[in-house]
C-alpha cells in the first residue's frame, strides 16, 4: 500500500519501514520438514535421519576423530613414575552427557541419604523464617541444613510417631481447651473475620465447643521451637552478629515523594505512589523523587538510639528485650506412659583440692641457680691456662690462637685435630723453615724462580687471546681495529654487553651493524682458538726434558723445588664468587692458564665460519698487491689467482648491495669451493686480471718492490697461500698501511680522470670508496670492447663450460 502512495505523494519519509509481520512469522514454517535439522547448542547436527544412523550418528558426536577414538597421546612417565592414570566413565562421555539432562549431570546433588528442597517439615520451615530474620551476611550452614533434608527420619522421630505424635504438634500430654487457649493466646487474638453476626463476648473456640457438645476435647500442646544452640566459632564479642544485609542495604525509611493533602474535615489524605498515571497492574518504578535525607544515616553515637536498627555490628543484640528462653517443663505426674521424666538437672560439682603445702625451705629458683653455678665453675676452669683473672678484653690481646680457641670452648668439645707439624721434630721444622726462606741458597738455580716474581707483580697487561699480529681483521681501518680490540677485551672480561663501553662517532645504524659484525667475529675466533688449543700440541715438549730430570729427583725421594712448579692461574670470576673468594685478578681477561697460543694459521680456517665477510672486505685492499706477489712468488700461480678473483667477485657484489645477508655468505663459500675444486672453469676472470694489471701497472710497481722484500716460502698449499701472504704483510702494520694508502689515492685520482673522460649520465655514482673494484668493473667494459676478437676463443670456451654446468 505504502509503495503505491510513496510514488504519488511527494512526502518526505524518515526512518526504515517496519518489516511485514507475516514475513517474519511465517519464516520457520517455510522450511519443509525434511530440510529442518536438529542441532545441539554447539550447532552440531544431532539427528541424521533414520537410515543414516539416527540420533547422534557421525564421528563427531560420539568419538574423538574421524577414524575412531582419539588415541591417547604418549607421555613419558619418566618424571612421575608413581602417577598411575585411571580412567573413569566420565573420560569417555560427551559434553552432553555431563550436562544437566545427560547421563551423568555434574550438578551439585544431594546424596541418596538426603533430599533437597522437597520435604521440609514444618518446624524447619518456621525455624527458617526465624533464621531469615537474623540472617547475616555470612549465610551460615543453617540455611543449607534446612535445604538438605535427610530422607530417613531419625529414630527419635520414628519412636514419637509410633507414640502418636504428629508433625507440627508439641510433645507432651494432650491438654484441655482452657490450657490450650492460654498458650495460644497471642495467635487467637487475631480473630478471623466473621461474616454475619456472632454472639458478643464469645470466642470462636466457644463456638467450636458448641458444635462438639460435652465431649471432652484435648489438644496437642503447642509445638515448641527448639532453641538452636550455635557453637561459637569466631572471635567476635559475645552476642555480636554481622551485618544483616536486609536491614543494612535496603534502607526502608525513605521519605516518599507521595502527595499529601488535607481534607476539609481535617483528616489527612495522602496519595502514595509516584504518579497518578500508574495503573494497578503496572509495576511501580523506583521512586525517583524520593529524597535521601541525612536522617537515614547514623551520624551520632547515641546510646541505644533505636536498638532494633543497629544492624548488629557492634552492639550485642538487646538482651534486655524479651528473649525468654522457655524451658520445657512438665509435671512429674504428667509423664507420657512408658517414660519417666528426668530429674532436674544437677551439675556434678567438680572436686577441688587445695594445693599441696610447700615445704618452708623450698626455693623455686633452684634450677636456675644451679645452672649459674655450673657456668661459673666452667669459667673458672677455662681461665686457668691464662692464669690471670683480668677482664676478658685485656686478656684476649695476650692470648695465643690456641688459647683463644680453648676459651671459646673448642677444648670443651671433642678436640678436633692437631696440626701435622706438631708431630715433626723441631730440627726438621727448622730445616723446613730454611727451605721456605731461601730456595736459591740451597743450590738450586732453576729458571723457574722468575715465575714467583712474576706472580708478585700487581697486574699483567691484559694479553689478547691470540697473537695480535695474526688477528687483525680490520687492519686497514685502525679506528675500527681499535674498537674491535676493545670489544674483544670486553668479551673476555665477560661483560654482559661488550659493545657498550666502546666510544665511536658512528651513527646508530652503523653501530648496530658493527656490533653484529664484531659479535660474529669474536664468536668464530673464540671457537677457533678453543678448538685449536685442544688439537695441537708442541712437537718437542720442553717439559719432557725437565720431567726426566725431575723423575730422577723424585726417585731419589727428594721433593721440593725441583719437583714443584708454579704457574699463574686465573680462576673464573664466577668460580671465585661461588667459592666466596675475592678474584685474585679482577681485571684479568684470561681464564685458566695464560698459555702461549699455538701458532696456527687463523685466517686459513676462517672460511669455515661465518666471519668470512669482514675479512674479505678487508682483503680487498692489498688485493692488487697480492696478485703481484703471486706473480713474483711462484710460477704455478694460476690457481691462486683464480681464487683471488673469486674473492674479488664476491667483493664486487658486496659493494653493490652493501649489506650482508646470510645468502651472500653462503655464496662466498660456494665460490671458495669452486676455486678449490672446479679447477679451470673461469678464465674470463683470469683475463680480467691480466687486463687489470695492465691498467694498474704504474702505481703498483712500487708495491711489487715492497712485496719482493717480504720473502715467502715458494711452496705453499695453494688454497691458503693468498691469505697467508696478506697476513704476513700485516705483520708490519705501520709500514704497510702507510704504503698502501698511497696507491689507493692514486687509483682514486686516476679513476676520477676516467670519469671525466667518459661522459656519464644518470645519477651520480657513489663516492669511489673501493677503488680497486670499481676499476675492475670499468676495465671489464673497456676490455670487452677492445679485445672482443682476441678473446672469442676464450668466450666460447666459457660457454661450453657453462653448458656443462
Amino acid at each position, binding site marked *: 500500500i505504502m509503495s503505491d502512495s510513496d510514488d504519488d505523494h511527494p512526502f518526505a519519509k524518515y526512518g526504515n519501514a517496519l518489516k511485514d509481520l507475516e514475513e517474519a512469522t511465517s519464516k520457520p514454517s517455510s522450511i519443509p520438514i525434511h530440510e529442518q535439522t536438529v542441532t545441539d547448542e554447539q550447532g552440531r547436527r544431532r539427528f541424521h535421519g533414520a537410515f543414516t544412523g539416527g540420533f547422534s550418528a557421525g564421528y563427531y558426536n560420539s568419538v574423538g576423530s574421524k577414524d575412531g577414538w582419539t588415541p591417547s597421546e604418549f607421555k613419558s612417565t619418566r618424571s612421575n613414575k608413581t602417577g598411575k592414570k585411571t580412567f573413569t566413565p566420565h573420560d569417555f562421555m560427551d559434553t552432553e552427557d555431563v550436562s544437566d539432562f545427560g547421563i551423568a549431570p555434574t550438578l551439585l546433588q544431594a546424596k541418596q541419604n538426603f533430599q533437597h528442597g522437597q520435604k521440609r517439615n514444618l518446624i524447619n520451615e518456621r525455624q527458617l523464617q526465624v533464621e531469615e530474620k537474623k540472617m547475616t551476611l555470612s549465610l551460615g550452614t543453617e540455611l543449607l541444613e534446612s535445604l538438605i533434608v535427610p530422607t530417613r527420619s531419625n529414630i527419635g522421630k520414628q519412636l514419637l510417631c509410633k507414640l502418636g505424635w504428629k508433625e507440627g504438634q508439641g510433645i507432651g500430654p494432650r491438654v484441655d481447651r482452657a490450657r490450650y487457649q492460654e498458650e495460644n493466646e497471642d495467635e487467637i487474638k487475631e480473630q478471623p473475620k466473621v461474616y454475619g453476626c456472632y454472639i458478643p463476648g464469645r470466642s470462636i473456640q466457644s463456638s467450636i465447643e458448641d458444635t462438639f457438645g460435652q465431649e471432652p476435647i484435648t489438644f496437642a500442646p503447642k509445638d515448641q521451637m527448639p532453641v538452636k544452640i550455635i557453637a561459637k566459632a569466631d572471635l567476635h564479642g559475645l552476642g555480636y552478629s554481622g551485618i544483616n544485609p536486609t536491614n543494612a542495604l535496603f534502607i526502608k525509611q525513605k521519605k516518599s515523594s507521595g502527595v499529601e493533602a488535607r481534607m476539609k474535615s481535617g483528616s489527612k489524605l495522602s496519595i502514595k505512589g509516584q504518579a497518578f498515571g500508574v495503573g494497578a497492574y503496572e509495576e511501580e518504578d523506583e521512586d525517583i523523587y524520593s529524597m535521601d535525607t541525612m536522617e537515614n544515616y547514623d551520624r551520632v553515637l547515641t546510646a541505644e538510639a533505636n536498638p532494633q536498627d543497629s544492624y548488629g555490628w557492634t552492639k550485642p543484640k538487646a538482651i534486655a528485650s524479651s528473649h525468654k528462653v522457655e524451658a520445657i517443663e512438665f509435671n512429674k505426674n504428667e509423664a507420657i506412659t512408658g517414660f519417666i521424666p528426668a530429674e532436674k538437672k544437677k551439675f556434678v560439682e567438680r572436686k577441688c583440692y587445695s594445693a599441696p603445702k610447700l615445704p618452708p625451705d623450698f626455693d623455686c629458683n633452684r634450677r636456675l641457680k644451679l645452672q649459674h653455678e655450673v657456668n661459673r665453675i666452667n669459667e673458672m676452669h677455662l681461665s686457668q691456662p691464662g692464669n690471670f683473672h683480668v677482664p676478658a678484653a685485656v686478656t684476649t690481646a695476650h692470648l695465643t690462637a690456641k688459647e683463644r680457641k680453648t676459651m671459646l670452648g673448642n677444648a670443651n668439645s671433642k678436640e678436633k685435630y692437631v696440626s701435622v*707439624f*706438631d708431630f715433626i721434630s723441631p730440627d726438621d721444622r727448622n730445616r723446613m723453615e730454611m727451605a721456605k726462606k731461601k730456595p736459591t741458597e740451597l743450590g738450586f738455580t732453576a729458571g723457574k724462580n722468575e715465575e714467583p716474581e712474576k706472580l708478585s707483580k700487581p697486574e699483567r697487561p691484559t694479553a689478547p687471546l691470540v697473537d695480535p699480529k695474526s688477528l687483525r681483521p680490520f687492519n686497514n681501518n685502525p679506528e675500527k681495529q681499535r674498537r674491535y680490540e676493545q670489544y674483544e677485551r670486553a668479551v673476555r672480561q665477560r661483560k654482559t654487553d661488550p659493545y657498550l663501553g666502546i666510544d665511536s662517532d658512528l651513527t646508530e645504524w652503523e653501530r648496530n651493524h658493527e656490533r653484529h659484525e664484531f659479535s660474529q667475529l669474536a664468536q668464530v675466533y673464540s671457537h677457533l682458538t678453543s678448538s685449536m688449543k685442544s688439537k695441537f700440541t708442541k712437537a718437542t715438549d720442553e717439559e719432557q726434558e725437565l720431567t726426566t730430570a725431575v723423575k730422577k729427583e723424585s726417585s731419589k725421594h727428594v*721433593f721440593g723445588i725441583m719437583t714443584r712448579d708454579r704457574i699463574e*692461574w686465573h680462576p673464573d670470576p664466577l668460580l671465585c664468587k661461588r*667459592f666466596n673468594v675475592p678474584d685474585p685478578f679482577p681485571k684479568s681477561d684470561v681464564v685458566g692458564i695464560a698459555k702461549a697460543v699455538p701458532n696456527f694459521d687463523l685466517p686459513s680456517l676462517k672460511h669455515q665460519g661465518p666471519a668470512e665477510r669482514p675479512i674479505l672486505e678487508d682483503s680487498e685492499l692489498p688485493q692488487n698487491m697480492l696478485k703481484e706477489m703471486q706473480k713474483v712468488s711462484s710460477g704455478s700461480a694460476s690457481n691462486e689467482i683464480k681464487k683471488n678473483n673469486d674473492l674479488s667477485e664476491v667483493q664486487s657484489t658486496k659493494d653493490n648491495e652493501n649489506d650482508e645477508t646470510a645468502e651472500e655468505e653462503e655464496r662466498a663459500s660456494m665460490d671458495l669451493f669452486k676455486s678449490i675444486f672446479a679447477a679451470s672453469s673461469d678464465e674470463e676472470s683470469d683475463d680480467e686480471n691480466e687486463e687489470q694489471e695492465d691498467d694498474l701497472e704504474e702505481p703498483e710497481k712500487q708495491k711489487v718492490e715492497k712485496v719482493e722484500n717480504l720473502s715467502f716460502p715458494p711452496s705453499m698449499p695453494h688454497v691458503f697461500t693468498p691469505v697467508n701472504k696478506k697476513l704476513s704483510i700485516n705483520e708490519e702494520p705501520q709500514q704497510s698501511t702507510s704504503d698502501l694508502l698511497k696507491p689507493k689515492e692514486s687509483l682514486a685520482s686516476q679513476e676520477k680522470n676516467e670519469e671525466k673522460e667518459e661522459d656519464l649520465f644518470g645519477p651520480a655514482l657513489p663516492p669511489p670508496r673501493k677503488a680497486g673494484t670499481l676499476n675492475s668493473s670499468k676495465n671489464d667494459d673497456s676490455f670487452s670492447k677492445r679485445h672482443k676478437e682476441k678473446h672469442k676463443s676464450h668466450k666460447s670456451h666459457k660457454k661450453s663450460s657453462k653448458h656443462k654446468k
Partner: protein
Amino acid sequence: MFGVVEGPANRPDAKEEKAPPKAKPRLPANLIHFIDCNQGAVRAVRFNGDGNYCLTCGNDKSIKLWNPEKQMLIKKYTGHGYDVLDAASSNDNCQIASCGSDKSVMYWDVASGQIIRRFRGHAGRVNCVQFNEESTVILSGSVDSSIRAWDCRSKKGSAIQIMDEAKDSISALQVSDHEILSGSIDGKIRRYDLRIGSMHSDNIGSAITSTCFTKDGQCTLTSTHDNTIRLLDVATGEMLGEYMGHKNAKYMIECALNRKDDHVISGSEDGHIYMWDLVEASVTKKLLVKRNKVIHSLSMHPEKDVMLVACENKIYMFADDFYELPDNIA
C-alpha cells in the same frame, strides 16, 4: 672423652720442653659389621657431611643411601647410564653429586630421588666428584684429563671453568675453602689456589690414585702406583713422610688420615687395611678384610673414629674400642 690427650701447642718452643705423653691411639680397628650392598661391585663408599649416613656407588648404575650403623637402606638413586664411580654429599645433606662411566655428573635431590641437574661435557669417564665448601659448585675430574667446575645454581649446562692442565686422567679430587687439589695419572698433584690465583704442581713421578689434604690444610697425602703413600708439605712441596708396605700398583686405592690426623690409613690390593703412624711411618695396624681382594675405597667419619671400607660388593664398618652401637640395635 677425657682420655684424649691434647696435641702440643703450635709454638715450637712449647714442644721442646716436653714430649706429649703417648696414649693409645684411637683407631677404627674393630670390625663392627658389614653390609651387602646388593648393587654389584661397590665402586666407592662415602660418608655424608655429618657422618650419620653413607653413600655407596654401585656397578649396577645406582647409588644407595644407607644408615651404616643400623645397616638400613634408606633410598636408592637410579639414573646413571653406566656404573657410578663417585658420589659426594652436599654440606646440608640435601643434595648428592655423583659421576660415572656415562661421562655425566649428576646433581640429585636426596629426599625425592630426582635428578636436579645433569651436567654433560666430559669427554670420558668421570672418576671423581666433589662439592665445594658451600655446595654451590660441583667439581669433577675425568679421564679426559680435565677438571670441570659446574654451577649448581644456574641452569646453564656448561661448566664454569675447565682446568685441563693435566696430561692424563684425573684420579682424585679434593676441595677446601679456596683450593682445589687434584691428582692425576700423569704423576702430578695439582693444587689450584683461587685466592692467590696460581696453580702449583708437584711431580711425584708415579700415577696418583688418591690424594687428600690433612685437616689443617698444610699437608697433602698422596698414594701412588709405586706402592707408596707420601705426605707432602703444601707450602714447599717437600716430602715429610713416606708410607710403604701395602700393595698399590694396579687399582685406584684410596688413602686417608684418621680423625686426629696422627695415622695414615690406606686400602691395599692384598685385602688388608694398613694403618701407619704418621710420624714414625711404621705400620701400627694391619686389618684383614678379605684375603687377596682389593680394598679400594674408604671413607672416614667426620667426627667419630669410624671408618667405612668398600670391598667387592660389601661395605665394612670399622670403629674404635670405645664405639657402641646405638641402643635400639644392640
